[in-house]
Structures are given as C-alpha cells and as structure tokens.
C-alpha cells in the first residue's frame, strides 16, 4: 500500500505545480466567495422568508428553508457532478501520457516499484485530486448555507463523493487508453465519450422503449449494460443533495457496478503496462 501512496503523493505534488489545479481551486473559491457576498437569505423560525442574489429577489414565498433551498442544492449537485467530471476529464487527461513520457518512464521503472503499483499510484493520485476538488466545493457550499441559513446538510458532500466515485471509473478508462496510445487528446476524448455514454446508459430503460422491439433494442440494451450509469448517479446525487428519497439498495448496486467497472478498466491497463516495452 505504501508504494501506491508514495506514487499518488508524487502525482499530487506534480498537480500542485500545474496551472489547471490552481485554476480549479481558485475557481471554486471564487464562486464560494461570490456566493457568500451576493446571496442574502432572510430566515425566520426555520422558514426562508426572502432570498436575493446580487440584490435581485429570487423568491418571495415563505417556506421551510430546506424545502426552499432544494432547487439551489439540486443545481449545485448537478454542477458539482457534471462540472467536476468535465473539468476532471480535461484537467487530468495528460497525467497518463506524462507518466509514459520518454526519459521519465525509464526513471520510474528503475525505481523499486512494481508496474501495477506505479499505475495504481498514478490513478490514486489523480482520483484524490479530483475528489479533493469536489469535496472542497461541496463542503464550502455546506458551510455557506449553514452559516447563512442555518441549513446544515451533508447532502452536497454526499453528492461530491458520488461524483468522485464516478470519475474514478471514467479516469480508469482514460489512463488505460493512454497506455495504448500516448495521447492526452485521445485520453480526453475517450473520457468525454465515456461521460456521454454513461449519461445515455443511465437512461437506458427510458431510451430502449423508444426503439423498435427486436434486434435494435436488444443490441442497445446489451451495449449499455456494461457502461457505468453516470446520469443515474447524477440524479441520485441531486436527490441526496436535496435530502429527497433515494432508493439505497439501487444506489449501492450502481456504485458497486461503477467501482467494479473502474477496477476492470484498470486491470486492462495493468495488463498492457506489464506487457509493454518501455
């Protein structure tokens, strides 16, 4: 485990020196600071009596603060989820190709590390980075709403954790792709493709009934059965953020499936890494 963590730490150190990472954390901080200055919430006995954003009245009806802020929490969860995935795909697409850069890979392979540890550590480092960003944003939002409206909810943090797990599966595919073709662009394209396919797979039941019964529907169902249900997890994260009802057995199964898919993609990557001649 220790070699894995050491490699992950190196990835984090490298990430800290990148402008992308700095931009991510500055961006999240900027949004939170802006929100804290511009969002005014008048709370009375647990009811939101008025809310203003940049002085503009957002809503005037008076209702329980957690119910009134549900739309905000839902939008935030979607932003954290899809925004985090999109940003993660773009910002982290070159970690894999950089790992294999001539000169660097030889140095890494000369270290007393197994190849799977090297790959696993890189994966872990990038994942920790993405998770830290999502958690930073969601925890900041939780703190903001807690202080401004007295609404202390772990919903946004749970939503961020779901986004983190989903990103792990997508990044496993991106990292593995980099081992076949050392290209950051291809890695990003595959990540984006996985995101898109995952959105479709999440709504596969609804989409499949629109297809003609028979081969096309069967083929669609068979192909999407393997893909992580990104949109279903996004919807679950929104429900968690808004403290709405979530079918937990279903959520756990989807999460387990995503984790297994990510591990499978990583296993392919490890096979390729072990096979490769660098």
């Amino acid at each position, binding site marked *: 485990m220790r070699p894995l963590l050491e490699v992950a730490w190196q990835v984090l150190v490298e990430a800290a020196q990148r402008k992308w990472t700095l931009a991510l954390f500055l961006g999240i901080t900027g949004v939170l600071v802006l929100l804290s200055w511009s969002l005014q919430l008048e709370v*009375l*006995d*647990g*009811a939101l*009596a008025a809310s203003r954003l940049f002085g503009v009245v957002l809503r*005037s*009806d*008076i*209702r*329980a*603060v957690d*119910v*009134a802020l549900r739309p905000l929490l839902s939008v935030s969860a979607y932003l954290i989820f899809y925004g985090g995935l999109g940003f993660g795909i773009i910002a982290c697409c070159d970690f894999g190709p950089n790992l294999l850069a001539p000169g660097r890979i030889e140095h890494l392979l000369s270290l007393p590390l197994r190849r799977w540890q090297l790959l696993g550590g890189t994966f872990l480092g990038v994942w920790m980075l993405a998770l830290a960003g999502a958690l930073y944003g969601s925890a900041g939002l939780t703190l903001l709403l807690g202080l401004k409206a007295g609404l202390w909810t772990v919903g946004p943090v749970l939503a961020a954790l779901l986004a983190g797990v989903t990103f792990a599966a997508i990044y496993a595919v991106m990292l593995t792709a980099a081992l076949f073709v050392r290209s950051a662009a291809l890695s990003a394209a595959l990540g984006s493709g996985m995101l898109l396919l995952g959105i479709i797979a*999440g709504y*596969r*039941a*609804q989409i*499949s*009934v629109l297809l003609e019964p028979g081969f096309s529907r069967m083929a669609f*169902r068979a192909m999407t*059965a*393997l893909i*992580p*249900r990104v949109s*279903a997890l996004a919807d679950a994260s929104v429900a968690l953020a808004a403290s709405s*009802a979530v079918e937990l*057995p*279903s*959520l*756990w*199964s*989807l999460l*387990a*499936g*995503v984790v*297994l*898919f990510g*591990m*499978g*993609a990583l*296993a*392919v990557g*490890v*096979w390729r890494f*072990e*096979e490769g001649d660098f």
Partner: protein
Amino acid sequence: MRRRSWLVAAAVLFMLAAVVMLYGQGEVVPAPATVEVEFPRQLRPAEQERLQSRRTLRPVPSVDMATQGRRPPQPRDPVLAALPQGRGRTAVVLEANALRHSPVGALLLECINRQGNQGLERMRQELGVNPLEDFDRVVVTPEGMMVSGHFQEARWDSLLRDASSRSYGDKGRIFEQPARRRSLPDGTVQESRAHVMGVWDEQLVMFGESVTEVQQAFDRLEGRAAADNPAIREEQTFGDIYGVLSPEDLARLVPRQQAELVEQLRQVGAQVELHVDARSDLGMVAHVTGTDPRKLQDVGKAMGGALALGRLDAQVKGDERLASVLEFARVQPGLASFNLEMALPLSFLEEQLAFCRKQPDAGGP
C-alpha cells in the same frame, strides 16, 4: 501466464459490474415521483362556465326600474343569493357533485361502502333523496347548513315527522320542530334543540335553528330583501371547496399552541378566503386579507415560520407523514394580503384511507 490473469480479472470484473448495475437499475422505466398540485388561485374557464350556468335566479324587476328605464338586474346564482349578506362572515361551499366524482371522493366512497351504506340507503328509500347523485352543493355556515340539488322526488315530511309545516313566499316551505324535553329513566331531563328546515323550489334545502334566518334567505331569493352583497361573491367560487372565514372563526381554527399567532390574526382583523382543488392531489389556497397591510406581512412571515417549525417538529418526532404534508406548505406574500398554500398528495390520502380497501374482517379501524 501471470500477465494474462489481469485480462481474465478484467473480464470477470466487467461482467460483475454489468450484473450488479442491472440489478441496481432494473429494466423498468421508473414512474415520475413528482407531485403536481394545481392550486386554485382564480376562476378557471370550466369554473367560469359553471358560474354562468348557475345564474338561474331571475330577480323580479321593481316598478321603479321599469318606469325609470333602468336595465333589469342580472340573473343570479340562487345559492349565493340565499347566503347571509355582508363581509366578515363565515360560509364554506362544498361542490358535492364535483367532490363525489373526484379521486378523493372515490376514496371516501370506498370508506362509506366499507362501513355499510345503510344511512344512504335509508335516505334513498324513506326520503327519496340520493345524496350521491342529487346533491349539487353543500353550504356550511355557523347558523346552519344549506344543500342545493334536485329534490323533486323528496318526501320531506318523513324527515321531520312531527314538525309543523307552512308555506312562505312564492316557492318556500318551512318545517319547524320545536325544542323538546324528555325525561330519562335516571331522572334527568334531556333537552333537544329546535330544528328548522326550509325547502325552496325543490332545489334548495336549509337546516338551522332559527325560523327568521330561513325566512330571510327566502326573502333574498324572491327579491323581497337585498341580496347584492353575499358572503361569497361569484368571482370567489373557484375550486371544489371554497368559502370565507370570519376573523373569529379563523382564530378558533388555529391550534391553541399558536396563541401568539391567533393574537396577531385578531389584531389585523384577518379574513380568509379559502379554495381547495380536489381534481387530483388536494391543493389548498387560503387568501388572507386584513386591515393593516404591514402587520399582515408580519403575520404571513410568522405563519410561514410556524409551518416550518411544525414540519421540523414532525421530523424530530418521527411523524414522516405530517412532515411530508407540511413540505408543500408555503406563504406567498402580496401587497396587502398573503396566500397560504398547502397540498395533500393523493398518494398520502390513499395511504391514510388504505384500510377502506380492505375487507371489514381483515382488521382495521
């Protein structure tokens, strides 16, 4: 060989992932779980039509009007014309026919059938009235009750057997049963209240305790008394239940724990116009007005806070049902008024009345 095992592991993991995700998501399209409540806030086209069709009472034009060349008064809704006059009174109208054919009505009917509808059957046989078909509207006021509908076949004498009856006005008939005293075996004396029933044109039946009130209603219907300022105005007749509540009756309805709120309502002379829609989920709007618009805003905020606290309290006590109902509650402030909106999802009512669908011997209340 060892390297190939990574590929085998990958294949197994992908297969497992697919199976687990299929289990988690299923192949069935999930039904939308959102509750769409229609809040009655104004007259809708169907209610406009209903309102027009109920203008059947043609007031007799006075001689003065004819000589002065003034236009004769417009036809009116007899139920509204019969209502007590003036603002600040309490009167609530239940659209019995619409409610009977609403999903909520169907649920309630199941409950009635489960308990055995002997009462309804007796009314049908003895009185010649079928409440489920013949009642159109039921009006409840502090003074009594009024039912509109089709009562051509009714045998009113059988309702108040020992009552005296007499005609009043052109189309009215009044049945009067005086208060009675009865000695019980234990020596105490039981006193029953006087009952008065008025029937007008076989379409309106009024129940009360005072002959004067029934007579006044007949006078309004037949043009002998002014009926131009009814407790409920035509433009307020939207929803399946609607009406107005006086400040006193409103204060009586607020729970005693909310004494401060009651006091605030009294101070601003709050009056409530109530509208309930039962076409799908129950949506209720209470339009609150008062004498002091600024204080009224504070009352609205206090009411919103009370609802939020009530929901929180229900959550703390584990009363998920109440909490879920209060989730839809909100206060919408206006310039000189505010609306209190609440919803009761049909699914909630179905859950509450689920015992009505069970066989009587299956256990249940």
